[in-house]
């Protein structure tokens, strides 16, 4: 059981970071369809950075920059040029996939990609807490980026609910005109939200390459960015809800892996569908939800 939960947490941590980044973007009124590309670029930058400098911290910083870079591209095209959020996000995912694969090979001089082998980041046990029975080893001996994800969740929640900046962001996502009447620059807020969100999503990618797999392979995010999008929708754009949703999706995947081991006649594919079906069900139940940021997907109506 403990193993199962540990697996769930492990699978959930990259999702959570990506979802947190997505929440920033969506609460500001921009659909976060580009999470997949931001994660992928982050994974790539982290792996390459850590490998080149033999320093994981460099990798983490580069992951932030890489994710932010993709975020900047999305922000310019959709917030500044007012192109459709969704299509821009999809396009940037294609770009990120191509760019990461390309650079991976270019750095090796041509055909074969460079072989990166990194030792996955080790767990940082918290002395004292880790000795608690049951819960201890589960929750307090996690690798550093996972702690960061949990902290990030708490921080984002505080930021959104308790600071002027968070209020501003939410206002732009609900009613940019009213925000403008209150003296805010909606476009600037949206650009910042997308870029910072991209950086955090990039960090989610770093979890994959630095903390779990120890290398970068083409398209290694494998749709996790879209899963993170589904989870933030299920969570109704709430950081703590996103943590729960990601954990649930992580549990589903962990469960599916164990199923394969036990030879239970439930199809693994059907189980894999569960997160998407849940997300659809939640959306269908919500209808045009009153919880969805009201102005989401709508371009800013004036040149500012």
């Amino acid at each position, binding site marked *: 059981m403990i193993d199962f939960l540990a697996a769930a947490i492990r699978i959930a941590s990259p999702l959570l970071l990506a979802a947190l980044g997505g929440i920033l973007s969506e609460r500001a009124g921009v659909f976060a369809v580009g999470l997949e590309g931001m994660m992928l670029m982050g994974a790539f930058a982290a792996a390459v950075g850590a490998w080149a400098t033999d320093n994981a911290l460099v990798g983490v910083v580069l992951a932030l920059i890489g994710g932010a870079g993709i975020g900047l*591209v999305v922000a310019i095209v959709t917030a500044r040029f007012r192109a459709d959020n969704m299509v821009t996000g999809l396009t940037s995912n294609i770009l990120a996939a191509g760019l990461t694969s390309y650079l991976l090979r270019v750095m090796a001089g041509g055909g074969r990609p460079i072989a990166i082998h990194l030792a996955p980041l080790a767990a940082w046990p918290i002395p004292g807490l880790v000795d608690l029975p049951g819960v201890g080893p589960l929750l307090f001996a996690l690798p550093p980026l996972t702690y960061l994800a949990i902290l990030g969740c708490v921080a984002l929640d505080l930021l959104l609910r308790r600071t002027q900046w968070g209020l501003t962001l939410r206002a732009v996502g609900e009613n940019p005109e009213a925000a403008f009447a209150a003296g805010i620059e909606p476009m600037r807020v949206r650009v910042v939200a997308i870029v910072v969100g991209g950086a955090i999503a990039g960090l989610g990618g770093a979890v994959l390459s630095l903390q779990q797999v120890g290398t970068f392979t083409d398209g290694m995010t494998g749709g996790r960015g879209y899963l993170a999008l589904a989870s933030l929708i299920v969570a109704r754009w709430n950081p703590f809800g996103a943590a729960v949703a990601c954990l649930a999706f992580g549990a589903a995947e962990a469960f599916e892996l164990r199923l394969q081991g036990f030879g239970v006649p439930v199809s693994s594919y059907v189980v894999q569908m569960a997160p998407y079906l849940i997300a659809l069900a939640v959306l269908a139940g919500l209808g045009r939800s009153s919880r969805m940021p009201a102005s989401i997907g709508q371009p800013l109506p004036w040149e500012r």
Partner: protein
Amino acid sequence: MDVGASGVTDAAPPTAPARLPALAAWRFHVGDQLAWRIAAAIALSTVSAALLVALSGRNPAAAFAAMAAGAAGSPHQLGVALNRATPYLLAGGGVAVCFRAGVINIGAEGQIALGGVGAAAVSLHWPDTPSPAAAMVALVGAAALGAAWAAVATAIHLGRRVHEVLATLLLNFIALLLVQQTLAGPLGQTGAGFLQSPELPAAAWLGKAPDLGAHAGVVVAVVAAAALSLILWLTPFGFALRVAGRSRRAAAYAGFSMNGLTWGVMLLAGALAGLAGGVEVLGMHHRLIEGFSTGFGFKAVTVALLGALEPLAVIPAALFVGLLEAGSLSMQRQIGVPSALVAVIEGMTMLFVLAATVRRA
């Protein structure tokens, strides 16, 4: 306060409004600006790609030359490009028409995959049908399944007021898993190392042109694009779509039902995407293979945008992408520039096109 006037004012008119040649008048005011902008977008991304190639220490001119030779250097290579372009053209045409109507349908990925299932299932279920009926019936099955999946998305979108992008996007993943499920089950070939169906009856295969190697699906795709353009410009339904894409209020005022239009355009696009899947399965692989259509749906969006949402222009756009992809392998082999550059070019071009051609302002 009427501040919208510009250009022509109440000056004395000519004695009778003159006739402009029909084709020019038809295309002129829609296409001229857009064409320039898309050309500029392609040029910009070519320059960026050249820079990326130079970054890797290779000669951009040589790289592009190798790509061109690899793409169209021989009839066989050209055939490869045409085959690659075909599913993009079919699905892209449907997506273009949807976008024109203001319906952002990105479910092609799933609809194509299920179309492949449809074609495989029909041809395996009735293996004794003679050619060419076998292929036609299988393609009908493909289109039907694609349309059915689009119908699911539409029902959720219109019935439960879920944003059509989210509905189609999520259904993509479910569709891909469904395909895997059918390959693991009823349609699968036992004993194969990976997920694939048994080889389909030869009667259902699409014929190939002798030197070219391009399969009959190319013809289907071109005919479909022409038909779409016809529908868009010469039928009341197409007119309604074009109005709805520009102003929902005007469409309501004009008496068009937005629900009816959405159903129509989604079913059409779903059928075309399904057809794309069927054509790929019957023409290229002759069996259903897991992941045979990965990325096709997003390519369809690329190609639709590059063609400025005009079905006839999607033909050269799809060909362009097909040539890029066919040539990229040669480029990698001969010059050492990774073929992943193609995805970069596609992504950049699309982003530039998006930035340059915002429709709903």
